[in-house]
């Protein structure tokens, strides 16, 4: 699969690197004890430290450190036992101290990688340069007055993990898969909720083009994209824009751009600093962060099985297809929900049940949730174990798959146990060969004309007979048996 783009003068390769800013799932900020709740009234979650008042000092939140360690482990990175916080100095209204506390020279995690799925069979490894901790900035509002901007510092000081990839992606799709995988891993670990709507997961995309086997081209940075879809759109737009400039003999300005979702375009930002000289130096209000082996091992012991490993296990142990496994592991809640249901199944053939439950969950349950407007699995109108019982009924031949759909609908409506529904409505499948033989005989008797046609070669009439048997038995006949009996009777 070639990711090369055809331009007028030849083939170009797109080079993409991503910087993800993931807000740590902490209750308090990184260096102060202010709360981090989303959408609080302006400046109500701001301490004197956050406001950069004279004499105020940062003290690090130990939970945030532990989440960074866990995230680093989940991304297969190296946890640096000594890391240092640096000040990134620049002036802006949303930066109360005139510097952001970040980690420039010695981040807490170096290296790492994740594997993304290119298709059902192929994965690609994307290497990670680093993960470091830094403060988020405040928010500025520009549309309340023609001459003033207003600053809310609630977000200032919230803990972010910045994850920087190597520039190893070559298409919008690869970038999107990378974003989805990182988000999934962090959500699994519980270190970031990945809520892009609330801004707790933001992506900066660096895009450049070059002819293969030549040095990388100048890149543009598109900042603060907050959806996977927009990541793709921004990249596609940039490719076209940059290709146009380069094919015309121009050069790409190394600049910061913003993505405009309404127009599907990127545009240049008015530069904040004409010369980006951040004068990084170690923050003298903080000491180097020294991590003990115990602390790192404790974080490691709290690691959960990550999506890739879970997917592999679902495929090997439970015999699920890659597709089914993928759907189940995207969200840890879904995978856990699935495994809980599976655990409560009484059937002996685990693999068979695993496949069935997977199907029921991903098609029927998800479908019903969509239609009813329910977004959380824990809010479905019946107990999770009931799905296992439903599948057990199918696998045990008590009801047919078709009847099961009706039972499911009733479960959704009433919340009742499927066994009770089947009892009450007398939906049990008939599996008595003698009874079926009788009905089959009856059907064939009254269908002499079709029987003749069938015997003459019209084999499609088999389905007609099946249908008639089912009708007579009100759908409760065991379909497999019906087929068997009919075949015998017609032979």
């Amino acid at each position, binding site marked *: 699969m070639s990711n090369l783009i055809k331009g007028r003068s030849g083939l170009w390769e797109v080079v993409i690197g991503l910087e993800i800013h993931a807000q740590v799932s902490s209750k308090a900020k990184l260096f102060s004890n202010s709360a981090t709740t989303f959408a609080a009234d302006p400046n109500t979650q701001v301490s004197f430290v956050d406001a950069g008042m*004279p*004499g105020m000092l940062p003290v690090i939140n130990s939970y945030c450190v532990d989440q960074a360690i866990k995230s680093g482990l989940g991304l297969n990175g190296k946890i640096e036992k000594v890391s240092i916080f640096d000040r990134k100095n620049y*002036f802006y209204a949303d930066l109360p101290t*005139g510097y952001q506390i970040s980690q420039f020279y010695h981040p807490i995690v170096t290296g790492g990688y994740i594997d993304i799925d290119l298709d059902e069979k192929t994965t690609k490894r994307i290497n990670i340069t680093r993960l470091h901790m830094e403060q988020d900035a405040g928010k500025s509002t520009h549309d309340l007055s023609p001459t003033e*901007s207003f600053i809310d510092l609630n977000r200032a000081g919230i803990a972010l993990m910045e994850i920087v990839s190597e520039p190893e992606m070559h298409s919008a799709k690869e970038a999107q898969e990378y974003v989805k995988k990182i988000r999934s891993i962090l959500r699994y670990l519980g270190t970031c909720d990945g809520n892009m709507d609330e801004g707790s997961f933001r992506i900066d995309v660096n895009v450049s083009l070059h002819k293969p086997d030549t040095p990388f081209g100048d890149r543009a940075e598109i900042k603060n994209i907050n959806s996977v879809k927009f990541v793709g759109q921004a990249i596609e737009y940039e490719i076209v824009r940059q290709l146009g400039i380069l094919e015309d003999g121009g050069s790409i300005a190394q600049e910061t751009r913003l993505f405009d979702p309404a127009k599907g375009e990127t545009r240049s930002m008015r530069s904040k600093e004409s010369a980006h000289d951040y004068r990084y130096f170690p923050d003298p209000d903080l000491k180097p962060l020294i991590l003990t082996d115990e602390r790192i091992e404790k974080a490691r012991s709290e690691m959960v099985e990550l999506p890739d490993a879970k997917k592999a296990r679902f495929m090997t142990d439970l015999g699920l297809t890659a597709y089914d496994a993928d759907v189940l592991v995207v969200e840890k809640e879904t995978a856990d929900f699935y495994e809980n249901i599976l655990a409560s199944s009484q059937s002996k053939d685990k693999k068979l049940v695993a496949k069935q439950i997977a199907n029921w969950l991903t098609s029927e349950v998800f479908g019903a949730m969509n239609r009813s407007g329910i977004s959380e699995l824990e809010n479905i109108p019946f107990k999770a174990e009931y799905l296992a019982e439903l599948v057990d009924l199918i696998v045990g031949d008590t009801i047919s798959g078709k009847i099961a759909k009706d039972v499911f609908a009733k479960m959704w409506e009433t919340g009742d146990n499927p066994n009770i529904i089947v009892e009450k409505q007398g939906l049990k499948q008939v599996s008595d060969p003698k009874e079926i033989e009788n009905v089959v005989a009856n059907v064939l008797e009254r269908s002499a004309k079709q029987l003749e046609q069938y015997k003459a070669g019209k084999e499609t009439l088999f389905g007609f007979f099946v249908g008639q048997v089912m009708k007579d038995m009100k759908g409760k006949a065991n379909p497999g048996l019906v087929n068997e009996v009919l075949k015998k009777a017609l032979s």
Partner: protein
Amino acid sequence: MTILTQLTISKAKALLTKGEISSKDLVQAHVDAMELKKDLNAFLTPCSDDALKKAERSDTMYKNKTARALEGIPLAYKDNFCTKNVRTTCGSKILANFVPPYEATVTDNLNNQGAINLGKLNMDEFAMGSGNIHSAYGPVTNPWKSKEDPSKKLVPGGSSGGSAASVSAHITMGALGSDTGGSIRQPASFCGIVGIKPTYGLCSRYGMIAFASSLDQAGPLARTVEDTALILQHMAGFDPKDATSIDIKIPEYAKNINKNIKGLKVGVPIEYLEGLHPDGQELVQKGIEWLKAEGAEVKEISLKTTSLALPAYYIIAPAEASSNLARFDGARYGERVKGDSLDEMYANTREEGFGKEVKRRIMIGTYVLSAGYYDAFYTKALKIKHLITEDFNKAFHDVDVLLTPTTPTAAFGIDEKITDPVTMYLNDVYTATANLAGIPGISVPAGLDHNGLPLGLQLLGPRFSEQSLFNIASVIEDAAQFKGLED
């Protein structure tokens, strides 16, 4: 009759406890002195009314026998300590009307022991200076006068000039200052009083407006070693709001003062004597004799990294300051000068709000941190800081304490035109080393120069050796019999 402003803190405490004097009278006497000696310009924001109210409360505490360690004792705080609901300017125009909604930990600690704040003290703007001539509110005058020209106004030293002058002139019983390159010890020496810069991390920096974060330390100034020790023991201590604060038990410094120094090993670094003015040389010699007389062993040692200290200091301190002062931009507090754009507002505000010396240091600091120069200057200076620390560590394997002069000369004239900033910076040559190494240093008044102006002797010890410094300083104090200014 007891002249209340002549008392030491420990004496005053004893009399208050016995009920022989009242805190109200004590504080009133100092409020009067503050008014009488206004011309020294030591105070920026007097807190007289509040002080008298607090004094009344203290008197009640004494009656009820619930008096705390510093109950009813009037102190004054350098204006870089944020005092809740009391204007705090840091000696700068940019904070002319800033009223902090929070209290610095060290002043809070003292207030919680019943100490009474007489007012906020003048200082070099943002603690940058060695003469208190860089305050936006006018210079402070040293209460001492030279014999050769008694009409000439002299500097009290800086940047804690207001602190030193007010203690020396008996306006306050003790004061808080801060020391980044010598700003407690140098003015203490110039004004003939005691001042100590504690071990880095002993006192909390929370609420103390930052100049150079890795070097700043709060510390007390008073007229006697015992008083200084008393204030330190109550202001110091671990603070979880300061990440550089150290969790160590604070001894009862004052009570524990032990003047037995038999067998104490004292080192005199030869580098600190090179080029020293004869008055200084003589004083160091006297110091050596006094200590020997009490059984100490004194020997010359070498601190080879001494000459590196000031250049390293003048990279590190401005660099950190340039970043620490970025928050003063007119956006959230302080004075604002209008601008059509955000950047214009910043530049106009800082142009108006900062004085010349502050601008100079911000410029140097910004320069040494900027791209292309960072490794050559800042990283290098940090590594040299490490070398200096190691040098002291090595010395302290050999000796217990170091004896040095505090300042190269006595107080100079306020109007002496010093055109080259480097000349001014050399005032810190004996003191900045301790800030770089994070070790404690005390200056104790030991004698007068040929002009009748005070000179101090400095003792430097390993980290957390404050008790030892107080002990030895007491020996010098006893031997020197230094006469401060009488009222």
